[in-house]
């Protein structure tokens, strides 16, 4: 008797109350993320970027399908069993393969989604209004990141599923488990890569008051790494090669190559190439002795993963570093407009 009263008066009410509040009022963080997602999806900027990526995606798919029979017939190619990976990588040279194109467009997507994350709120006077609400300050920057990454994740997942689906329709084959794993890994690397540029542009959006300044700075960094970085290292390697003794020159060249290897775009292309082309067995130079006796065959997924482990951790680390700096700056930021 007593127990049932307790059940009815306390526990039942509490449960009812609990379900009611959780049903009607989600946590403020969820509300903010929802707003970010809907903002991104409705914005023209995202639609344009999406169209660009869709175009390159289907452009490269078209070319790879045209080249598919040829590539699969090549008996010397150890990758010819991976039809779906071939779909993503095969090219006749007119258009770079999909994963290389994403190396160009990914940064653009990340920068486009983040360059005005904080400064537009500050300039519109919405930042101070949101900060005056009873929510912790970091909710805003976390929501900015989470919202954008959710959209990017959704986009890449759908895009790759579409590609695989189209491949299934066209070839009549179904992907093996390993291919599915490799493609999932590829999607993950793409998301991490976009996350890096997103975090970098969020960082600039906190640092710079004007959205145009932050966009241009982020673009400058991107251009620097895609174009000038290699050129500068190439020039300096030639300049120093003439000066040093052969032994020192070798060490120096190695150092320069590792410098090239840590550029974000290089990390991305290395990681995606290794994932999508299973026959890649090393990303660095191999000596003749190491090559001797090697059978040209494909690696297993875990072996490929081992090869790109440094690239993967590097990208994730760079991304986290940018976010950590943004977080620190944002928490200390004077929010008056």
């Amino acid at each position, binding site marked *: 008797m007593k127990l049932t009263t307790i059940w009815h008066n306390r526990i039942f009410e509490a449960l009812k109350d609990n379900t009611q509040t959780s049903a009607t*009022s989600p946590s403020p963080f969820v509300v903010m993320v929802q707003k970010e997602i809907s903002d991104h999806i409705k914005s023209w900027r995202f639609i344009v970027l999406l169209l660009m990526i869709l175009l390159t995606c289907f452009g490269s798919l078209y070319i790879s399908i045209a080249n598919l029979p040829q590539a699969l017939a090549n008996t010397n190619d150890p990758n010819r069993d991976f039809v779906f990976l071939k779909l993503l990588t095969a090219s006749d040279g007119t258009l770079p393969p999909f994963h290389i194109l994403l190396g160009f467009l990914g940064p653009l997507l990340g920068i486009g989604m983040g360059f005005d994350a904080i400064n537009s709120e500050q300039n519109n006077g919405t930042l101070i209004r949101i900060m005056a609400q009873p929510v912790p300050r970091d909710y805003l920057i976390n929501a900015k990141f989470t919202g954008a990454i959710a959209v990017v994740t959704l986009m890449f997942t759908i895009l790759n599923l579409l590609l695989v689906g189209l491949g299934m329709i066209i070839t009549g084959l179904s992907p093996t488990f390993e291919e599915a794993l490799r493609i999932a890994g590829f999607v993950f690397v793409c998301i991490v890569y976009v996350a890096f540029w997103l975090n970098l542009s969020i960082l600039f959006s906190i640092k710079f008051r004007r959205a145009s300044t932050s966009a241009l700075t982020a673009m400058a960094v991107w251009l620097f790494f895609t174009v000038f970085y290699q050129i500068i290292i190439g020039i300096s390697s030639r300049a120093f090669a003439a000066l040093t003794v052969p032994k020192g020159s070798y060490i120096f060249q190695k150092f320069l190559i590792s410098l090239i290897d840590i550029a974000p775009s290089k990390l991305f292309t290395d990681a995606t190439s290794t994932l999508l082309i299973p026959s890649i067995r090393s990303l660095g130079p191999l000596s003749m002795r190491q090559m001797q006796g090697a059978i040209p065959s494909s690696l297993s997924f875990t072996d490929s993963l081992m090869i790109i482990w440094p690239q993967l951790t590097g990208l994730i680390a760079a991304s986290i570093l940018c976010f950590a700096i943004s977080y620190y700056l944002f928490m200390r930021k004077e929010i008056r*407009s």
Partner: protein
Amino acid sequence: METPVISTKQLCKDYGDIHAVCKLDLEIRKGEIFGLLGPNGAGKSTTILMILGLTEPSSGEVSVCGYHPTTNPIEVKKRVGYLPDSVGFYDNMSGLENLCHIARLNRIKENVEDTALHYLQKVGLDSAAHRKTGTYSRGMKQRLGLADVLIRKPEVIILDEPTLGIDPTGVRDFLQLIRELSREQGLTVLLSSHHLHQVQQVCDRVGIFVGGSLIALGDIPSLSKTLHQGQAFTVEAEISGDINFNKHPVKKELLAMKEVIEVKENNGRVQLYCSSDITPLIARTLINSGLNVSYLCKKEYGLDDIYQRYFEGNYETNHNMA
């Protein structure tokens, strides 16, 4: 005496070498409308931000509803509604959507949309509820800002320059609304402004803020009393008819009174500076000498005069006086 809703003790904020706020002691009681008055850059906004916990004080203490804004900002923000001076909304969303967003962030229990519509109606924006806020006028944004503050059901409302950029009728309505709401719901209101008349209209007490420190505090009559202690009373009279006052015998008569210090004629109006309030005597004198007095007024010192004294006169001497 009941504990004040907002209190600051020796509050200071420095930006480098500049003292934005300097040793501020302020107490705001429950249910009152307090006006923070001062010219631009006096440190009003900084004080408000410190009260909200959005800026950290360099030294000193703030307490809002018993909470410490620096260590417990969430609790303070739950109780305080803040309308910033340049309030902004998400331009791509409608007024209703903006309001719903804030309501959801505050996890209000009722149906979000109905509540938002109710508050929009309260501030008179129900007809523009579905328009994008990008198309709103300044006054509409300000009213939406007020709805945005009210929907959270705060105990304290802080308004930073709420009347900036609104036309005179808009200002009157807005202040009327604030006053009504404060009286209806027992809200404590802190508003900052450099528009004296407006503050005079609604505030129970005002604090005058110059160069980061509070130089005068109190209700308007007592303020004007302290400020004008030992100062001349001014009586203004207008005499109809074509009379050259300066040559009229009554001038000499008036000047002969021991309380009258000076008599001046200005634009057809006579101003008498006296050491004490002798308005009835002046009236009698003027009428007895056969002049047609069409207007007679003892000048009350309003905030304007106070303002003049503080901001446009020599601040240092006034500071010593206060």
